[in-house]
């Protein structure tokens, strides 16, 4: 297949830029650069994502991924985790569980996301998803739940979430 993906994330914990190359559907290799807002450290990591499982049906796709990354200058900075999703053209369910270590703290975070497409667009149309994301990590015993708007057109995806405590959660992605 051979595709490139460029991503940018920004939330209460960090700002990240991430590029990866997918030689085939089973795995991708990439590099990210992040500025940690808690420790105010910046570092780059090499990342590896592996598709553990995929199930296609006429109307759905289900995936399970292993995700990992290690700091280029300091291997103490690393993370590993699982992420999965099940998706139809109308519904989306996704989760992730990730352990992050290094840069002065350890963090385990779980997320769960539910989404519905209010209308079904054709290929090339603007696709809209209304989602709810819930997140729990070691920084806060309480679960944070907030609405997310996902807009998706061609190779571009924009995802914006907001919670009064954690502020904006923004994810941009472009595939080429």
């Amino acid at each position: 297949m051979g595709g490139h993906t460029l991503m940018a994330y920004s939330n209460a914990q960090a700002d990240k830029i991430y590029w990866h190359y997918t030689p085939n559907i089973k795995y991708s290799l990439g590099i990210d650069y992040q500025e940690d807002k808690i420790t105010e450290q910046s570092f780059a990591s090499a990342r590896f994502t592996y598709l553990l499982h995929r199930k296609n049906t006429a109307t759905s796709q289900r995936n399970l991924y292993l995700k990992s990354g290690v700091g280029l200058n300091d291997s103490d900075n690393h993370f590993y985790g699982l992420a999965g999703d099940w998706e139809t053209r109308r519904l989306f369910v996704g989760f992730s569980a990730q352990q992050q270590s290094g840069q002065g703290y350890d963090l385990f975070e779980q997320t769960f996301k539910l989404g519905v497409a209010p209308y079904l667009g054709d290929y090339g149309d603007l696709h809209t998803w209304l989602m709810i994301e819930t997140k729990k990590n070691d920084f806060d015993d309480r679960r944070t739940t907030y609405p997310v708007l996902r807009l998706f057109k061609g190779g571009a995806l924009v995802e914006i979430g907001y919670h009064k405590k954690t502020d904006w959660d923004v994810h941009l992605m472009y595939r080429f």
Partner: protein
Amino acid sequence: MKTTLILGATLIFLASTSQAQHHHNMHDMHSHEGHMHEQMVDGKALEVDVERFDNFVSDIPGDKIAVVSVQGMVCDFCARGIEKSFGKNNQISKIDVDLASGKVLLGFQSDAEIDQAYIEKQILNNGLNTTAIQVLGD
């Protein structure tokens, strides 16, 4: 006078019947000629969105058409990957990805050999599965 009326009515009836028959024949021609979607492939009717299919073939007359049924094609990323993969083949004249029906329509130049294994491999390389391929014009 009465005979003239009966004769006239008979002529009008026959003429209108003939016109109706002619119209019916024209209707049949419209329905069956130039509408590839009504063709049978291996004894099965084409499983396509008729309007979309007719629109697809309208500007590639004479080309061979492959109708590919795909599993897992739920978003534009899948569709883009498929379009990109088949777009590299210069024997393919036109590509249409229909997310709603899970079909990919491929137009092949009239002299092209359609290799079903090649089609399945391109779909698989995009992480999707082929469940059926119907070829017209081969």
